[in-house]
């Protein structure tokens, strides 16, 4: 249970990282590693190259931008959790980060990594979708902004190109009513189903291949969640209805 062979690269700055991603075949970005390294250990992922961005300095800021909060690629989830700016401008994001795994994982894991990994049961992509945030993708070709509604394309799949690095993720400030609620088998596990409410907007996670927007009045319309050993499809739909009701009752 150890990683398959790969070539290791540790660029010193973003430009170098992007030029590596542009020139290497089958490269993966290694940020916090809390999702990627388990996949490497199980050999479920066998990239030919790892581009470790952890040696890049000045890429871990959490700052105010355009009436919201920008979180750079190397900002750890624990730093987001402890950020006064996040608590003030986007408390929904703080509440969501606290549901991500455990503090020891959050000490290393990055927010941008969770977004790029795009686990359909993950909280942070659903928060980005509910708030209508975006990522800034950087490559040797330049920068582009990808809105959350265009980012998540499938299970662990995004519209990021192989040579693009998520330089930062931007969340609009939250002023009105908000809530994130989920049900999981054990504390810190991925959710069986979860809901994010931001004002009138509702996003669901754990019930489709990507996080999805839904209507408060009929949150399960069109949903066909999968069933597995942990929860049947019917139970997941039930959770969506109950959690939606709770999110709007709060």
């Amino acid at each position, binding site marked *: 249970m*150890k990683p398959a062979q790969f070539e290791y690269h540790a660029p010193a700055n973003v430009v170098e990282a992007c030029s590596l991603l542009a020139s290497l075949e089958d490269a993966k970005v290694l940020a916090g*590693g809390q999702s990627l*390294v*388990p996949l490497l*250990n199980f050999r479920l992922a066998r990239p030919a190259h*790892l581009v470790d961005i952890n040696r890049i300095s000045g890429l871990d800021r959490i700052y105010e931008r355009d009436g919201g909060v920008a979180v750079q690629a190397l900002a750890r989830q624990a730093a987001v959790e402890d950020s006064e700016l996040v608590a003030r401008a986007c408390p929904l994001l703080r509440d969501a980060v606290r549901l991500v*795994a455990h503090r*020891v994982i959050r*000490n*290393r894991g990055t927010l941008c990594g969770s977004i790029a990994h795009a686990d359909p049961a993950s909280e942070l992509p659903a928060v980005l979708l509910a708030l209508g945030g975006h990522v800034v993708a950087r490559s040797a070709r330049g920068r582009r902004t990808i809105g959350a509604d265009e980012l998540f394309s499938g299970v662990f799949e995004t519209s990021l190109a192989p040579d693009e690095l998520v330089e930062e993720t931007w969340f609009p400030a939250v002023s009105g009513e908000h809530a994130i609620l989920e049900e999981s088998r054990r504390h810190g596990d991925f959710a069986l189903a979860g809901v994010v409410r931001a004002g009138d907007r509702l996003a669901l996670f754990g019930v489709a291949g990507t996080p999805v927007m839904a209507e408060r009045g009929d949150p399960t319309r069109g949903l066909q969640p999968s069933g597995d050993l942990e929860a049947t499809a019917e139970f997941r739909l039930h959770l969506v209805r109950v959690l939606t009701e709770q999110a709007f009752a709060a």
Partner: protein
Amino acid sequence: MNVNGVDHPAPTDPRRLLSDHIRHDIGLTGTHVGCEHGVCGCCTVLFDGAPVRSCLMLAIQAEGHQVTTIEGLAPDGAPLHPVQQAFHETHGLQCGFCTPGFVMSVVGLLKQNPDPTPEEIDEGISGNLCRCTGYASIRRAVLRAAELSR
């Protein structure tokens, strides 16, 4: 990398996990390896002072950083670290396999929050699995460790 105050060369194979490097190359076997995918918490060490899973890091990533393992908390012959002393006093362990990971997580927890409530303790140790104790005695150990650390 610096482990418990001693400098060590980085491994030559970038595939080497930090957990395996600590155990097999440096010979510090107090860091235990359970699940190797970040679930059990047995391999928790301090990385620049904050607890992390050593099975979810490549050893090469620790170059230029400070790593503290369970062996680094109290040198041989010195009194136990308050967290170790608390686990000892309150019987916060049975077989001991998970204990180094728990102790390192609790060191991090108390550094972040020196006076945790029972709920904060449950949250703080929720990333470590113990198959013997049922956690009640571990919870007591954390309370006692907070007392001893004051």
